Protein backbone atom coordinates (compact mmCIF):
# COMPACT_ATOMS: atom_id res chain seq x y z
CA UNK A 1 0.00 0.00 0.00
CA UNK A 2 1.47 3.35 -0.95
CA UNK A 3 0.59 6.65 0.64
CA UNK A 4 -0.12 8.37 -2.62
CA UNK A 5 -2.86 5.87 -3.40
CA UNK A 6 -4.66 6.75 -0.21
CA UNK A 7 -7.45 9.25 -0.08
CA UNK A 8 -6.36 12.48 1.50
CA UNK A 9 -8.27 12.54 4.70
CA UNK A 10 -6.71 14.15 7.73
CA UNK A 11 -7.49 12.86 11.18
CA UNK A 12 -8.33 15.39 13.85
CA UNK A 13 -6.04 13.91 16.47
CA UNK A 14 -6.90 16.52 19.05
CA UNK A 15 -10.57 15.56 18.95
CA UNK A 16 -9.74 11.84 18.81
CA UNK A 17 -7.60 12.07 21.94
CA UNK A 18 -10.62 13.33 23.88
CA UNK A 19 -12.34 10.00 23.17
CA UNK A 20 -9.67 8.07 25.15
CA UNK A 21 -10.06 8.78 28.87
CA UNK A 22 -6.82 6.99 29.81
CA UNK A 23 -4.80 9.58 27.91
CA UNK A 24 -5.54 11.96 30.80
CA UNK A 25 -3.48 9.83 33.14
CA UNK A 26 -0.21 10.96 34.60
CA UNK A 27 2.62 8.47 34.98
CA UNK A 28 5.31 9.45 37.48
CA UNK A 29 3.83 12.93 37.34
CA UNK A 30 4.21 13.12 33.56
CA UNK A 31 1.45 12.94 30.93
CA UNK A 32 1.15 9.38 29.63
CA UNK A 33 2.68 8.79 26.22
CA UNK A 34 1.44 5.42 25.15
CA UNK A 35 3.68 3.80 22.54
CA UNK A 36 2.86 0.17 23.37
CA UNK A 37 -0.12 -0.17 21.06
CA UNK A 38 1.30 -3.32 19.48
CA UNK A 39 0.70 -5.07 22.80
CA UNK A 40 -2.78 -3.64 23.23
CA UNK A 41 -4.41 -0.39 22.22
CA UNK A 42 -6.30 1.95 24.52
CA UNK A 43 -10.11 2.05 24.37
CA UNK A 44 -12.31 4.98 23.34
CA UNK A 45 -15.26 6.00 25.52
CA UNK A 46 -17.59 4.61 22.82
CA UNK A 47 -16.23 1.09 23.45
CA UNK A 48 -16.24 1.48 27.22
CA UNK A 49 -19.87 2.70 27.04
CA UNK A 50 -20.93 -0.17 24.78
CA UNK A 51 -19.59 -2.72 27.27
CA UNK A 52 -20.96 -0.88 30.28
CA UNK A 53 -24.39 -0.30 28.67
CA UNK A 54 -24.62 -3.95 27.82
CA UNK A 55 -24.15 -4.93 31.46
CA UNK A 56 -26.39 -2.12 32.72
CA UNK A 57 -29.29 -2.64 30.32
CA UNK A 58 -29.14 -5.80 28.25
CA UNK A 59 -27.14 -8.50 30.07
CA UNK A 60 -28.59 -11.91 29.37
CA UNK A 61 -27.45 -15.17 27.84
CA UNK A 62 -27.82 -15.41 24.08
CA UNK A 63 -29.29 -17.84 21.56
CA UNK A 64 -31.52 -19.59 24.08
CA UNK A 65 -33.96 -17.47 26.03
CA UNK A 66 -37.54 -16.60 25.09
CA UNK A 67 -37.48 -13.40 27.10
CA UNK A 68 -36.91 -9.85 25.91
CA UNK A 69 -33.43 -9.39 27.34
CA UNK A 70 -32.18 -12.57 25.78
CA UNK A 71 -33.60 -11.51 22.44
CA UNK A 72 -31.97 -8.08 22.71
CA UNK A 73 -28.61 -9.51 23.74
CA UNK A 74 -28.73 -12.04 20.88
CA UNK A 75 -29.56 -9.25 18.44
CA UNK A 76 -26.67 -7.12 19.69
CA UNK A 77 -24.28 -10.08 19.49
CA UNK A 78 -25.37 -11.07 15.98
CA UNK A 79 -25.36 -7.45 14.88
CA UNK A 80 -21.71 -7.29 15.96
CA UNK A 81 -21.00 -10.18 13.61
CA UNK A 82 -22.59 -8.20 10.76
CA UNK A 83 -20.62 -5.04 11.59
CA UNK A 84 -17.35 -6.94 11.61
CA UNK A 85 -18.18 -8.90 8.43
CA UNK A 86 -18.95 -5.64 6.65
CA UNK A 87 -15.74 -4.01 7.89
CA UNK A 88 -13.63 -6.81 6.42
CA UNK A 89 -15.90 -7.13 3.36
CA UNK A 90 -16.89 -10.72 4.04
CA UNK A 91 -19.73 -12.13 1.97
CA UNK A 92 -21.51 -14.06 4.72
CA UNK A 93 -21.34 -12.96 8.35
CA UNK A 94 -21.30 -16.68 9.25
CA UNK A 95 -17.67 -16.71 8.10
CA UNK A 96 -16.82 -14.55 11.12
CA UNK A 97 -16.38 -16.79 14.15
CA UNK A 98 -15.90 -15.22 17.56
CA UNK A 99 -12.99 -16.63 19.54
CA UNK A 100 -10.94 -15.57 22.56
CA UNK A 101 -8.44 -13.83 20.26
CA UNK A 102 -5.63 -14.46 17.79
CA UNK A 103 -3.98 -17.18 19.84
CA UNK A 104 -7.25 -19.05 20.32
CA UNK A 105 -8.08 -18.71 16.61
CA UNK A 106 -4.68 -20.05 15.53
CA UNK A 107 -5.05 -23.02 17.85
CA UNK A 108 -8.50 -23.73 16.42
CA UNK A 109 -7.22 -23.61 12.83
CA UNK A 110 -4.23 -25.79 13.67
CA UNK A 111 -6.28 -28.37 15.56
CA UNK A 112 -8.95 -28.45 12.88
CA UNK A 113 -6.45 -28.94 10.09
CA UNK A 114 -4.58 -31.52 12.18
CA UNK A 115 -7.77 -33.57 12.31
CA UNK A 116 -8.57 -33.25 8.63
CA UNK A 117 -5.77 -32.30 6.28
CA UNK A 118 -2.45 -32.99 7.98
CA UNK A 119 -0.86 -36.43 7.76
CA UNK A 120 2.21 -37.83 9.54
CA UNK A 121 5.38 -36.25 8.19
CA UNK A 122 3.68 -33.24 6.58
CA UNK A 123 5.34 -29.85 6.40
CA UNK A 124 4.16 -26.35 7.33
CA UNK A 125 5.76 -23.13 6.16
CA UNK A 126 6.11 -20.21 8.59
CA UNK A 127 8.15 -17.01 8.41
CA UNK A 128 11.22 -15.96 10.40
CA UNK A 129 9.26 -13.22 12.12
CA UNK A 130 6.31 -15.20 13.46
CA UNK A 131 4.88 -14.48 16.90
CA UNK A 132 5.16 -17.50 19.23
CA UNK A 133 1.37 -17.88 18.95
CA UNK A 134 1.79 -18.77 15.29
CA UNK A 135 4.67 -21.18 15.96
CA UNK A 136 3.77 -23.20 19.03
CA UNK A 137 0.51 -24.89 17.88
CA UNK A 138 2.17 -26.04 14.63
CA UNK A 139 5.31 -27.10 16.47
CA UNK A 140 3.31 -29.16 18.93
CA UNK A 141 1.53 -30.87 16.05
CA UNK A 142 4.86 -31.46 14.24
CA UNK A 143 6.48 -32.97 17.34
CA UNK A 144 3.66 -35.43 17.78
CA UNK A 145 3.37 -36.32 14.11
CA UNK A 146 6.93 -36.37 12.76
CA UNK A 147 6.07 -33.18 10.92
CA UNK A 148 8.39 -30.35 10.03
CA UNK A 149 8.29 -26.56 10.16
CA UNK A 150 10.00 -24.83 7.23
CA UNK A 151 10.94 -21.21 7.76
CA UNK A 152 11.02 -18.39 5.19
CA UNK A 153 14.38 -16.65 5.70
CA UNK A 154 15.04 -12.91 5.99
CA UNK A 155 16.74 -10.59 3.53
CA UNK A 156 19.51 -8.32 4.79
CA UNK A 157 16.93 -5.58 5.45
CA UNK A 158 14.88 -8.04 7.59
CA UNK A 159 12.10 -8.27 5.01
CA UNK A 160 11.07 -11.81 4.04
CA UNK A 161 12.97 -13.51 1.24
CA UNK A 162 9.89 -14.57 -0.71
CA UNK A 163 12.01 -16.01 -3.52
CA UNK A 164 13.12 -18.69 -1.09
CA UNK A 165 9.62 -20.08 -0.58
CA UNK A 166 9.57 -22.25 -3.69
CA UNK A 167 12.64 -24.07 -2.40
CA UNK A 168 10.94 -24.82 0.90
CA UNK A 169 7.99 -26.53 -0.74
CA UNK A 170 7.84 -30.30 -1.18
CA UNK A 171 4.99 -32.68 -1.91
CA UNK A 172 4.55 -32.89 1.88
CA UNK A 173 3.90 -29.18 2.30
CA UNK A 174 0.26 -28.48 3.19
CA UNK A 175 0.04 -25.08 4.86
CA UNK A 176 1.59 -21.61 4.88
CA UNK A 177 0.80 -19.80 8.12
CA UNK A 178 2.14 -16.28 8.22
CA UNK A 179 1.87 -12.89 9.90
CA UNK A 180 0.36 -10.15 7.76
CA UNK A 181 2.47 -7.64 9.69
CA UNK A 182 5.45 -8.45 11.91
CA UNK A 183 4.65 -7.44 15.48
CA UNK A 184 8.35 -6.74 16.12
CA UNK A 185 9.39 -5.01 12.90
CA UNK A 186 6.15 -3.60 11.49
CA UNK A 187 7.07 -4.94 8.05
CA UNK A 188 4.14 -5.90 5.84
CA UNK A 189 4.11 -9.36 4.29
CA UNK A 190 3.33 -9.33 0.57
CA UNK A 191 0.28 -11.58 0.74
CA UNK A 192 -0.46 -11.23 -2.99
CA UNK A 193 2.84 -12.89 -3.85
CA UNK A 194 2.41 -15.57 -1.21
CA UNK A 195 -1.12 -16.26 -2.38
CA UNK A 196 0.12 -16.96 -5.92
CA UNK A 197 2.61 -19.48 -4.57
CA UNK A 198 0.00 -21.05 -2.28
CA UNK A 199 -2.52 -21.41 -5.10
CA UNK A 200 0.10 -22.86 -7.46
CA UNK A 201 1.00 -25.59 -4.97
CA UNK A 202 -2.48 -26.01 -3.57
CA UNK A 203 -1.43 -24.93 -0.06
CA UNK A 204 -3.76 -23.71 2.66
CA UNK A 205 -3.02 -20.08 3.57
CA UNK A 206 -3.47 -18.96 7.19
CA UNK A 207 -2.94 -15.27 7.96
CA UNK A 208 -2.15 -13.93 11.44
CA UNK A 209 -3.57 -10.43 11.16
CA UNK A 210 -3.12 -9.42 14.81
CA UNK A 211 -0.92 -6.51 13.73
CA UNK A 212 -2.46 -5.61 10.38
CA UNK A 213 -6.12 -5.35 11.36
CA UNK A 214 -5.43 -2.34 13.63
CA UNK A 215 -3.64 -0.35 10.97
CA UNK A 216 -4.91 -1.00 7.45
CA UNK A 217 -7.98 -1.64 5.34
CA UNK A 218 -8.44 -5.35 4.70
CA UNK A 219 -10.85 -6.67 2.10
CA UNK A 220 -11.19 -10.37 2.81
CA UNK A 221 -13.23 -11.08 -0.29
CA UNK A 222 -10.42 -9.69 -2.43
CA UNK A 223 -7.66 -11.11 -0.25
CA UNK A 224 -9.18 -14.56 -0.67
CA UNK A 225 -7.16 -16.54 1.89
CA UNK A 226 -8.30 -19.67 3.74
CA UNK A 227 -8.07 -18.35 7.30
CA UNK A 228 -7.58 -14.87 8.72
CA UNK A 229 -7.39 -14.18 12.46
CA UNK A 230 -7.07 -11.15 14.74
CA UNK A 231 -7.72 -9.87 18.29
CA UNK A 232 -10.18 -7.14 19.29
CA UNK A 233 -7.95 -5.69 22.01
CA UNK A 234 -5.33 -4.47 19.55
CA UNK A 235 -8.02 -2.65 17.52
CA UNK A 236 -9.47 -0.46 20.30
CA UNK A 237 -11.80 -3.26 21.49
CA UNK A 238 -11.98 -5.29 24.73
CA UNK A 239 -9.59 -8.07 25.71
CA UNK A 240 -10.57 -11.71 25.49
CA UNK A 241 -12.23 -11.70 22.11
CA UNK A 242 -11.23 -11.84 18.47
CA UNK A 243 -12.19 -13.47 15.24
CA UNK A 244 -11.46 -16.47 13.13
CA UNK A 245 -12.48 -15.82 9.54
CA UNK A 246 -12.61 -18.80 7.24
CA UNK A 247 -13.33 -19.00 3.53
CA UNK A 248 -16.71 -20.46 2.64
CA UNK A 249 -15.49 -23.96 1.87
CA UNK A 250 -13.90 -24.39 5.31
CA UNK A 251 -17.05 -23.41 7.14
CA UNK A 252 -18.54 -26.82 6.46
CA UNK A 253 -15.24 -28.69 6.10
CA UNK A 254 -13.19 -27.76 9.16
CA UNK A 255 -13.81 -30.32 11.91
CA UNK A 256 -15.15 -29.15 15.25
CA UNK A 257 -12.32 -29.34 17.81
CA UNK A 258 -14.01 -27.46 20.65
CA UNK A 259 -17.41 -29.12 20.99
CA UNK A 260 -19.86 -27.83 23.58
CA UNK A 261 -23.21 -26.27 24.29
CA UNK A 262 -24.53 -24.05 21.53
CA UNK A 263 -22.62 -25.71 18.69
CA UNK A 264 -25.26 -28.30 17.88
CA UNK A 265 -28.52 -29.07 16.10
CA UNK A 266 -29.35 -32.30 17.96
CA UNK A 267 -27.56 -34.37 20.59
CA UNK A 268 -28.11 -37.90 21.80
CA UNK A 269 -25.67 -40.10 23.71
CA UNK A 270 -24.96 -41.95 20.47
CA UNK A 271 -24.59 -39.14 18.01
CA UNK A 272 -24.46 -35.35 17.59
CA UNK A 273 -25.37 -33.25 14.62
CA UNK A 274 -23.50 -29.96 14.67
CA UNK A 275 -25.00 -26.64 13.70
CA UNK A 276 -24.21 -24.99 10.39
CA UNK A 277 -22.36 -21.72 10.20
CA UNK A 278 -20.42 -19.85 12.86
CA UNK A 279 -22.21 -21.34 15.88
CA UNK A 280 -20.59 -24.69 15.16
CA UNK A 281 -17.29 -23.16 16.31
CA UNK A 282 -18.59 -21.13 19.27
CA UNK A 283 -19.07 -23.49 22.21
CA UNK A 284 -20.32 -22.32 25.56
CA UNK A 285 -21.37 -18.81 26.56
CA UNK A 286 -19.22 -16.47 24.50
CA UNK A 287 -17.65 -13.19 25.57
CA UNK A 288 -20.87 -11.31 24.79
CA UNK A 289 -19.86 -7.92 26.19
CA UNK A 290 -16.47 -8.26 24.51
CA UNK A 291 -18.02 -8.94 21.13
CA UNK A 292 -20.40 -5.98 21.51
CA UNK A 293 -17.45 -3.78 22.49
CA UNK A 294 -15.51 -5.15 19.51
CA UNK A 295 -18.26 -3.98 17.14
CA UNK A 296 -18.25 -0.56 18.81
CA UNK A 297 -14.48 -0.39 18.20
CA UNK A 298 -14.93 -1.28 14.54
CA UNK A 299 -17.63 1.38 14.19
CA UNK A 300 -15.29 3.82 15.90
CA UNK A 301 -12.52 3.19 13.36
CA UNK A 302 -14.86 3.12 10.39
CA UNK A 303 -16.07 6.66 11.04
CA UNK A 304 -12.54 7.76 10.05
CA UNK A 305 -11.81 5.00 7.57
CA UNK A 306 -8.82 2.66 7.64
CA UNK A 307 -7.04 4.56 4.86
CA UNK A 308 -6.99 7.73 6.94
CA UNK A 309 -5.73 5.75 9.93
CA UNK A 310 -2.99 4.10 7.87
CA UNK A 311 -1.89 7.42 6.45
CA UNK A 312 -1.77 9.07 9.88
CA UNK A 313 0.24 6.24 11.40
CA UNK A 314 2.58 5.97 8.43
CA UNK A 315 3.41 9.65 8.83
CA UNK A 316 4.21 9.00 12.49
CA UNK A 317 6.35 5.96 11.65
CA UNK A 318 8.35 7.82 9.02
CA UNK A 319 8.76 10.82 11.27
CA UNK A 320 9.94 8.69 14.21
CA UNK A 321 12.21 6.58 12.02
CA UNK A 322 13.96 9.62 10.60
CA UNK A 323 14.36 11.19 14.06
CA UNK A 324 15.74 7.93 15.47
CA UNK A 325 18.13 7.55 12.54
CA UNK A 326 19.67 10.90 13.49
CA UNK A 327 20.80 9.53 16.85
CA UNK A 328 24.20 7.90 16.25
CA UNK A 329 23.83 5.24 18.97
CA UNK A 330 20.49 3.98 17.65
CA UNK A 331 20.28 0.82 15.57
CA UNK A 332 16.99 0.41 13.69
CA UNK A 333 15.59 -2.95 12.61
CA UNK A 334 13.21 -3.58 9.73
CA UNK A 335 13.56 -0.06 8.37
CA UNK A 336 11.09 0.73 5.61
CA UNK A 337 9.16 3.79 4.51
CA UNK A 338 5.97 1.84 3.92
CA UNK A 339 5.10 -0.21 6.96
CA UNK A 340 2.61 -0.59 9.78
CA UNK A 341 2.95 1.50 12.91
CA UNK A 342 5.73 -0.48 14.62
CA UNK A 343 9.43 0.39 15.05
CA UNK A 344 12.07 -1.75 16.74
CA UNK A 345 15.47 -0.44 17.72
CA UNK A 346 18.34 -0.80 20.12
CA UNK A 347 20.85 1.59 21.62
CA UNK A 348 24.47 0.55 21.19
CA UNK A 349 26.04 -0.96 24.31
CA UNK A 350 22.89 -0.73 26.39
CA UNK A 351 20.30 -3.29 27.32
CA UNK A 352 16.73 -2.56 26.12
CA UNK A 353 15.47 -3.07 29.67
CA UNK A 354 17.48 -0.07 30.94
CA UNK A 355 16.15 2.20 28.21
CA UNK A 356 12.54 1.05 28.78
CA UNK A 357 12.81 1.49 32.57
CA UNK A 358 14.06 5.06 32.29
CA UNK A 359 11.58 6.06 29.56
CA UNK A 360 8.79 4.86 31.86
CA UNK A 361 9.97 7.35 34.46
CA UNK A 362 9.19 10.07 31.89
CA UNK A 363 5.69 8.64 31.39
CA UNK A 364 6.58 6.98 28.07
CA UNK A 365 5.28 3.42 27.71
CA UNK A 366 7.40 1.34 25.34
CA UNK A 367 7.88 -2.40 25.05
CA UNK A 368 11.23 -4.05 25.63
CA UNK A 369 12.24 -7.67 25.25
CA UNK A 370 11.74 -10.36 22.64
CA UNK A 371 8.08 -9.48 21.86
CA UNK A 372 7.22 -13.19 21.71
CA UNK A 373 9.46 -13.52 18.66
CA UNK A 374 12.52 -15.26 20.11
CA UNK A 375 13.48 -16.97 16.84
CA UNK A 376 13.62 -13.53 15.20
CA UNK A 377 15.75 -12.18 18.09
CA UNK A 378 18.18 -15.05 17.53
CA UNK A 379 18.40 -14.19 13.83
CA UNK A 380 19.07 -10.55 14.69
CA UNK A 381 21.59 -11.69 17.34
CA UNK A 382 20.08 -9.47 20.05
CA UNK A 383 18.58 -10.32 23.46
CA UNK A 384 15.66 -8.05 22.70
CA UNK A 385 14.70 -4.69 21.24
CA UNK A 386 12.89 -1.55 22.26
CA UNK A 387 9.62 -1.38 20.38
CA UNK A 388 7.44 1.67 19.88
CA UNK A 389 4.09 1.20 18.18
CA UNK A 390 1.56 3.86 17.31
CA UNK A 391 -2.19 4.22 17.19
CA UNK A 392 -4.76 6.68 15.94
CA UNK A 393 -4.28 9.02 18.95
CA UNK A 394 -0.49 9.40 18.83
CA UNK A 395 1.10 12.64 17.67
CA UNK A 396 4.35 14.08 16.36
CA UNK A 397 4.56 16.18 19.52
CA UNK A 398 4.68 12.96 21.53
CA UNK A 399 7.42 11.64 19.25
CA UNK A 400 9.42 14.84 19.75
CA UNK A 401 9.17 14.46 23.54
CA UNK A 402 10.11 10.80 23.27
CA UNK A 403 13.19 11.59 21.14
CA UNK A 404 14.27 14.32 23.58
CA UNK A 405 13.97 11.95 26.53
CA UNK A 406 15.57 9.06 24.67
CA UNK A 407 18.64 11.22 24.10
CA UNK A 408 18.69 12.07 27.80
CA UNK A 409 18.35 8.37 28.70
CA UNK A 410 21.21 7.43 26.37
CA UNK A 411 23.28 10.07 28.12
CA UNK A 412 22.39 8.69 31.56
CA UNK A 413 23.37 5.18 30.54
CA UNK A 414 26.65 6.17 28.93
Amino acid sequence: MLVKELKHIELNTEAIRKDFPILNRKINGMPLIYFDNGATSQKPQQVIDAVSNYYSNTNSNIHRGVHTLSREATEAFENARKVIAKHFNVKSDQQIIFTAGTTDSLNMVCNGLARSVLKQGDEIILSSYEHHSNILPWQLWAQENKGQLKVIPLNADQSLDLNAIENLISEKTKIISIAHVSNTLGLITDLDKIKIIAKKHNLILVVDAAQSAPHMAVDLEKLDVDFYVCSAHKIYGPTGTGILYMSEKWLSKLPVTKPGGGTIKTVSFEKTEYADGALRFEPGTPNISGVIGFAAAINYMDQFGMDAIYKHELELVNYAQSKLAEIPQVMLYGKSNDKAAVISFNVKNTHPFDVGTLLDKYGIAVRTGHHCTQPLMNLLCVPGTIRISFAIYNTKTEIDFFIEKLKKVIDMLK
Partner: protein
Amino acid sequence: MSIKEIENEIVEEFEIFGDDWEGKYEHLIDLGKNLGTLKEEYKIENNIIQGCQSRVWLHSEKKDNNIIFSAESEAIITKGMVALMIRVLSGHTAKEIIETKLEFIDKIGLKEHLSPTRANGLVSMINRMKMDAITLSK
Protein backbone atom coordinates in the same frame (compact mmCIF):
# COMPACT_ATOMS: atom_id res chain seq x y z
CA MET B 1 28.19 -3.96 60.21
CA SER B 2 24.87 -5.70 60.61
CA ILE B 3 22.39 -5.97 57.76
CA LYS B 4 20.21 -3.33 59.43
CA GLU B 5 23.16 -0.93 59.71
CA ILE B 6 24.06 -1.36 56.04
CA GLU B 7 20.43 -0.81 55.07
CA ASN B 8 20.39 2.44 57.09
CA GLU B 9 23.61 3.55 55.43
CA ILE B 10 22.06 3.05 51.98
CA VAL B 11 18.88 4.87 52.99
CA GLU B 12 21.00 7.86 54.08
CA GLU B 13 22.97 7.71 50.88
CA PHE B 14 19.79 7.94 48.80
CA GLU B 15 18.15 10.56 51.03
CA ILE B 16 20.10 13.42 49.48
CA PHE B 17 18.25 12.89 46.19
CA GLY B 18 14.82 13.52 47.74
CA ASP B 19 12.28 13.44 44.91
CA ASP B 20 14.91 13.68 42.20
CA TRP B 21 14.43 10.32 40.54
CA GLU B 22 16.99 11.13 37.85
CA GLY B 23 19.68 11.58 40.52
CA LYS B 24 18.57 8.37 42.19
CA TYR B 25 18.77 6.37 38.99
CA GLU B 26 22.10 7.94 38.02
CA HIS B 27 23.42 6.76 41.38
CA LEU B 28 21.96 3.30 40.80
CA ILE B 29 23.59 3.19 37.37
CA ASP B 30 26.94 4.18 38.94
CA LEU B 31 26.58 1.40 41.49
CA GLY B 32 25.95 -0.98 38.61
CA LYS B 33 29.00 0.21 36.74
CA ASN B 34 31.21 -0.21 39.80
CA LEU B 35 30.03 -3.74 40.54
CA GLY B 36 32.61 -5.26 38.24
CA THR B 37 32.22 -8.52 36.42
CA LEU B 38 31.59 -12.05 37.53
CA LYS B 39 34.22 -14.71 36.84
CA GLU B 40 33.41 -16.42 33.52
CA GLU B 41 33.37 -19.83 35.25
CA TYR B 42 30.38 -18.69 37.31
CA LYS B 43 28.36 -17.50 34.31
CA ILE B 44 26.66 -20.81 33.85
CA GLU B 45 23.08 -21.78 33.15
CA ASN B 46 22.59 -22.97 36.73
CA ASN B 47 23.45 -19.54 38.11
CA ILE B 48 20.96 -17.64 35.94
CA ILE B 49 18.05 -16.17 37.87
CA GLN B 50 14.78 -16.87 36.10
CA GLY B 51 12.26 -14.11 35.58
CA CYS B 52 14.58 -11.31 34.56
CA GLN B 53 14.36 -9.64 31.17
CA SER B 54 18.14 -9.23 31.20
CA ARG B 55 20.26 -12.18 32.22
CA VAL B 56 21.38 -12.13 35.86
CA TRP B 57 23.92 -14.63 37.19
CA LEU B 58 24.29 -15.19 40.92
CA HIS B 59 27.13 -17.15 42.50
CA SER B 60 26.84 -18.03 46.18
CA GLU B 61 29.48 -19.63 48.43
CA LYS B 62 30.09 -20.19 52.13
CA LYS B 63 33.18 -18.78 53.84
CA ASP B 64 33.60 -19.58 57.52
CA ASN B 65 30.05 -19.18 58.70
CA ASN B 66 29.04 -16.51 56.24
CA ILE B 67 27.41 -16.56 52.81
CA ILE B 68 29.26 -14.65 50.09
CA PHE B 69 27.41 -13.51 46.98
CA SER B 70 28.75 -12.31 43.68
CA ALA B 71 26.65 -11.47 40.63
CA GLU B 72 26.39 -9.77 37.29
CA SER B 73 23.67 -8.63 34.93
CA GLU B 74 23.49 -7.49 31.32
CA ALA B 75 21.30 -4.50 32.20
CA ILE B 76 22.96 -1.72 34.15
CA ILE B 77 19.96 -0.74 36.29
CA THR B 78 19.47 -4.36 37.25
CA LYS B 79 23.18 -4.50 37.99
CA GLY B 80 22.75 -1.52 40.31
CA MET B 81 19.99 -3.34 42.16
CA VAL B 82 22.20 -6.42 42.32
CA ALA B 83 25.05 -4.33 43.74
CA LEU B 84 22.77 -3.05 46.51
CA MET B 85 21.55 -6.55 47.34
CA ILE B 86 25.09 -7.88 47.55
CA ARG B 87 26.19 -4.97 49.71
CA VAL B 88 23.34 -5.66 52.13
CA LEU B 89 23.31 -9.47 52.21
CA SER B 90 26.79 -10.73 51.37
CA GLY B 91 29.05 -11.69 54.28
CA HIS B 92 26.30 -12.51 56.73
CA THR B 93 25.09 -15.78 58.18
CA ALA B 94 22.31 -17.71 56.51
CA LYS B 95 20.04 -17.02 59.48
CA GLU B 96 20.57 -13.25 59.22
CA ILE B 97 19.99 -13.35 55.46
CA ILE B 98 16.79 -15.35 55.69
CA GLU B 99 15.31 -13.23 58.46
CA THR B 100 15.90 -9.81 56.94
CA LYS B 101 12.90 -7.96 55.50
CA LEU B 102 14.94 -5.64 53.25
CA GLU B 103 12.90 -2.58 54.18
CA PHE B 104 15.46 -0.27 52.59
CA ILE B 105 14.12 -0.94 49.07
CA ASP B 106 10.86 0.78 49.92
CA LYS B 107 12.62 3.54 51.86
CA ILE B 108 14.90 4.51 48.97
CA GLY B 109 11.92 4.74 46.62
CA LEU B 110 12.67 1.71 44.48
CA LYS B 111 9.66 -0.28 45.63
CA GLU B 112 8.29 -0.34 42.08
CA HIS B 113 10.98 -2.90 41.33
CA LEU B 114 9.35 -5.30 43.79
CA SER B 115 6.10 -5.56 41.81
CA PRO B 116 5.63 -9.05 40.42
CA THR B 117 5.40 -7.74 36.86
CA ARG B 118 8.76 -6.01 36.97
CA ALA B 119 10.90 -7.59 34.34
CA ASN B 120 14.10 -7.07 36.32
CA GLY B 121 13.13 -9.90 38.63
CA LEU B 122 14.29 -8.29 41.87
CA VAL B 123 11.84 -10.53 43.70
CA SER B 124 13.32 -13.62 42.04
CA MET B 125 16.78 -12.36 42.91
CA ILE B 126 15.94 -11.97 46.59
CA ASN B 127 14.26 -15.39 46.68
CA ARG B 128 17.26 -16.99 45.03
CA MET B 129 19.70 -15.38 47.49
CA LYS B 130 17.67 -16.62 50.45
CA MET B 131 17.30 -20.10 48.92
CA ASP B 132 21.04 -20.33 48.29
CA ALA B 133 21.69 -19.24 51.87
CA ILE B 134 19.45 -22.02 53.16
CA THR B 135 21.05 -24.64 50.92
CA LEU B 136 24.60 -23.61 51.82
CA SER B 137 23.90 -23.57 55.55
CA LYS B 138 22.83 -27.21 55.57
